[in-house]
């Protein structure tokens, strides 16, 4: 097994609808400077960089090269990763793998996006098969809507159940100065918002955002030398299953209308880390919930409750601030979605929670935190972070 790895520096821009005052690499630089200052590091101390975004959102390929002025990667090992919505969590996992390998002690992970610079739907369509999907399919919203319909059919959940998730996420965002949307929405506001693609309404969806986030991952050999307490990465996992749009809604083996990639990646990491009851054991969760119905179905796929049980728990406030396991104290993806930054922000928020640095959105005494990434193509990344240094690396 490899080295134990911790997050020892966090940087994040305020998430905004547009940042016309900076170019992409200047935006990246804001997050990188903040992360380096947080970690008490200079550019010279970086051993390697992992960076990512979605090329088509800015129309610039090889971002690894183009952004070296801002990223700090000039003449250093750098790797670019693009995996759709999971890009940010994939970057975090890759930085973790770099450090766990023992080859690098301090790795900078950067996720960013300027969604304001393109047509998000037009860019997203390039992720889909040109023969079988693109002639029919019109972007992310309607793809998620297929999931929502299947979930409601399987469980009897309602559009109003989903609206409770949308309202909770927006309420939580009011405590987060980094969030893009600060909306004090009601259930009625969500229910009365126009349909984008039935059953998904405007109020159910995430916004399009500009933002960047950078994290420093450090090995156990140096993790105690940083000015802030390390947030230990206890385990990571990912699963993919998508070839065509029709694939992810059903488990091929069981025929169940669930989310097998998320179920299996969660189970994989839970087994290694020793999670048997997520609702009891996790103190907080920062989850990639791109729209409201995800806040129902994914709680079930992540094992927080049984199938069809998430609506009742959500209405009871189980996942609210002050509830048994607060979900997305930051306001989550439904309040800010700079796509390539979004999933690494989940990891950043989880680290801040563990370090007790989440300010007005801090959950008391966080020892164990869950962070997830969700790909536009229904794949799933899972990271578990903890306050205590693990006895050994668990992968």
């Amino acid at each position: 097994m490899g080295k134990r790895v911790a997050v020892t520096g966090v940087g994040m821009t305020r998430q905004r609808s547009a940042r016309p005052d900076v170019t992409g690499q200047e935006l990246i630089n804001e997050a990188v400077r903040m992360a380096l200052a947080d970690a008490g590091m200079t550019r010279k101390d970086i051993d390697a960089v992992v960076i990512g975004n979605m090329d088509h959102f800015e129309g610039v390929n090889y971002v690894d090269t183009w952004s070296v002025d801002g990223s700090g990667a000039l003449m250093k090992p750098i790797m670019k990763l693009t995996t759709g919505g999971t890009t940010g969590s994939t970057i975090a996992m890759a930085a973790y793998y770099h450090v766990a390998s023992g080859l690098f002690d301090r790795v900078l992970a950067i996720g960013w996006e300027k969604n304001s610079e393109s047509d998000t739907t037009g860019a997203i369509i390039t992720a889909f098969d040109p023969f079988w999907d693109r002639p029919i399919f019109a972007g992310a919203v309607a793809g998620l809507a297929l999931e929502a319909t299947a979930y409601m059919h399987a469980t009897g959940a309602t559009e109003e159940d989903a609206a409770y998730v949308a309202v909770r996420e927006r309420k939580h965002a009011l405590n987060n100065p980094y969030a893009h949307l600060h909306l004090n929405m009601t259930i009625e506001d969500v229910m009365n918002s126009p349909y984008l693609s039935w059953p998904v309404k405007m109020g159910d969806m995430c916004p399009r955002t500009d933002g960047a986030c950078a994290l420093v991952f450090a090995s156990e050999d140096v993790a105690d030398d940083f000015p802030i307490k390390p947030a230990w990465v206890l385990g990571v996992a990912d699963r993919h299953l998508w070839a065509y749009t029709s694939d992810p809604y059903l488990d091929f083996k069981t025929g169940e209308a669930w989310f097998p990639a998320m179920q299996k990646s969660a189970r994989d990491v839970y087994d290694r880390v020793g999670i048997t009851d997520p609702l009891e054991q996790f103190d907080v969760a920062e989850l990639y919930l791109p729209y409201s119905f995800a806040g129902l179905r994914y709680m079930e796929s992540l094992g927080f409750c049984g199938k069809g049980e998430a609506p009742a728990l959500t209405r009871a406030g189980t996942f609210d601030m002050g509830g048994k396991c607060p979900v997305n104290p930051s306001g989550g993806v439904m309040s800010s979605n700079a796509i390539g930054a979004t999933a690494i922000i989940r990891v950043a928020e989880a680290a801040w929670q563990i370090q007790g640095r989440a300010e007005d959105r801090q959950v008391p005494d966080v020892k164990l935190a869950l962070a997830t990434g969700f790909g536009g193509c229904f794949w799933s990344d899972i990271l578990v972070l903890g306050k205590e240094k693990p006895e050994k690396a668990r992968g």
Partner: protein
Amino acid sequence: MEDWRKDQEVLVMEGRIKVPYRWFAGEVGTRYLESLRDKGVFLGTRCPGCEKVYHIPRRHCPECFEECSQWVELGSSGTLESYTIVRRQHPQLSPLPVPYGYGIIRLEGADTGFLHLLGEFDDKELKVGDSVEAVFSDKREGNILDVKFFRPVKGVE
């Protein structure tokens, strides 16, 4: 935040990347599309390992990793596994004027669903599990839109 825009313009460079592509359907995709175009018959492929019938046909079973060499004729009607009704038009990407539907349809004889458009339906009556049938395009050109859309099968409950 910054009020630099009071004194300065917001300058932008407009651009449009339009790259022509020619995607090859390959042997399996071509055989499937020819059958759809010339005979109006849907074909699937069967995995020799798990016996699953894939539609859209796949050359390899992603699970068993066997070559799916056996072709199977499928029905032109099937079951609606999920659907949505699109209400917001995208100027370039929407295949039909809104509102229109699309869904995941599992054809008779297939073990997997595929994506297609829905037409001639009443949105108050449409539901998961409905029987739907293919309506073919008048002019067929060898792509998936040789099927115009799927519509509910009348008189079936």
